[in-house]
């Protein structure tokens, strides 16, 4: 996400400044990406821009939901203590089941007096319960597929009024590499920008001719891709990696 908020000099671009100002107005600076907060904390030039824009818009109301500063989706996280309790119960049931299944031994085990038995190590109370991060990870992966309202609106719209026929990628793509194929009235070069569903730039590349392949790997999620030519938006598409 942070890739789309900095310019070529490493300072906040207009969208980065706007995001910070939105956060100030909504009192949600704690939800800003850490890279943006850290940069502004150490950059007077960016503070000038943020403060200047804030000063212009301080009295302008902000209503409705925000594309990126809303509360994160509630993820059901089981506290570690619950897992330990569950593990003890499962272990106890397992021990009971083993005794019931095998029953008492016929003869006591005779131990050779020369062989010293090693002290029994205390049984671990933690067995193979599902690790807490798994549930959190599932929630995070689901969030990566949530459509971006603004970018969805651009997908498939006629941007320059010319035909732009896309053959690839389709809706579902291979995480290892994405191949781009299209027919356009204009010849190249173009610029491709791949964004995640939060509007963050994931990859950028200059394209001289198609087909053009971008190597991954790409994490599971919903991605949008923009084709830009002569500073104009030629096409916006999307694909999923599962």
């Amino acid at each position: 996400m942070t890739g789309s908020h900095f310019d070529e000099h490493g300072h906040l671009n207009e969208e980065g400044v706007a995001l910070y100002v939105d956060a100030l107005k909504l009192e949600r600076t704690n939800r800003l990406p850490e890279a943006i907060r850290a940069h502004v904390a150490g950059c007077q030039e960016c503070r000038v821009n943020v403060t200047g824009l804030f000063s212009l818009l301080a009295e302008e109301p902000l209503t409705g939901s925000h594309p990126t500063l809303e509360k994160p989706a509630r993820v059901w996280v089981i506290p570690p203590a619950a897992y330990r309790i569950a593990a003890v119960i499962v272990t106890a049931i397992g021990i009971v089941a083993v005794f019931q299944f095998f029953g008492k031994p016929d003869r006591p085990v005779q131990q050779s007096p020369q062989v010293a038995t090693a002290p029994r190590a205390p049984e671990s109370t933690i067995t193979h319960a599902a690790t807490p991060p798994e549930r959190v990870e599932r929630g995070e992966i689901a969030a990566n597929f949530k459509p971006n309202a603004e970018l969805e609106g651009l997908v498939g719209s006629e941007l320059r009024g010319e035909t732009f026929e896309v053959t690839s990628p389709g809706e579902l793509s291979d995480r290892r590499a994405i191949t781009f194929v299209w027919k356009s009235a204009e010849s190249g070069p173009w610029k491709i920008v791949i964004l995640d569903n939060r509007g963050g730039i994931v990859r950028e590349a200059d394209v001289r001719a198609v087909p053009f392949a971008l190597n991954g790997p790409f994490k599971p999620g919903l991605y949008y891709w923009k084709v830009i030519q002569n500073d104009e938006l030629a096409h916006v598409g999307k694909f999923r990696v599962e």
Partner: protein
Amino acid sequence: MATVPHDNEEDFALFLRDPHGFLLSYQETLRIVVKIYVQSGMFRAQDTEDILQALNEELLLRFPTIRAKFNGSTILRTYLSAVVRNLCIDLYRADKSNPKVVPLDGTLHLPHVDVTGRYDIEHTRRVFRAILKQFDYKLELPRLLFCLKLRYRFPIEREDVLKFYPGCGRNDLERLLKTLSGNYETLTEWEISELITPVLNKADGRDNTPEAILRWVRVRIGNILTLLNGSPPTGAFDQETLKILVEDFFSPFLDETE
């Protein structure tokens, strides 16, 4: 002076479907921005319509680029206002480099400019708080607030020290509070700096000198004043007016008068 609230998704749909229509809906905000700059002295009142025209022309010309660069991570109007702000600064710089001849024969009509409404106290207070929030809230801000209190000789409380140095030893804390919790107007900047430097160094794990601490405080105050006054400068805040804001921050007392 605020505009009617807009729905961001509706704005964005219009932005895609009908750029001209969207710009029309944005005119109210555009006019407010230009009025603010006129009131601050950056533009002349009689140039308002020319400036609005120039901004609209630039926005239409740059619309494809604006749309290409926008990644949807922020409110569209905020983003557009950031673009407009930069365009206004460019216009100001271009205008500044072309001096105009002003007739002194009484034929120049200067419309009345209302300078009373814009820089009201509540707005200034809001901007000041926004400025403070941009500093590192974990490391720098608590130290900065502590030093601002010292700069203006406001009494220090236990919490002021513990916020930037939670592990402050009892002896250090008592030594600071003994001198700084009451009236210490007679102490010089240097004496205060000598007193606090050991504690600040312990908090940061550094070995700064009292001069370095003083320099840091002066630079930070300079930064805050630059932010309050804007760039290009449109305000006239100084160390004395900053004192009022700092005092209000710690014990709010400023009310907008009816």
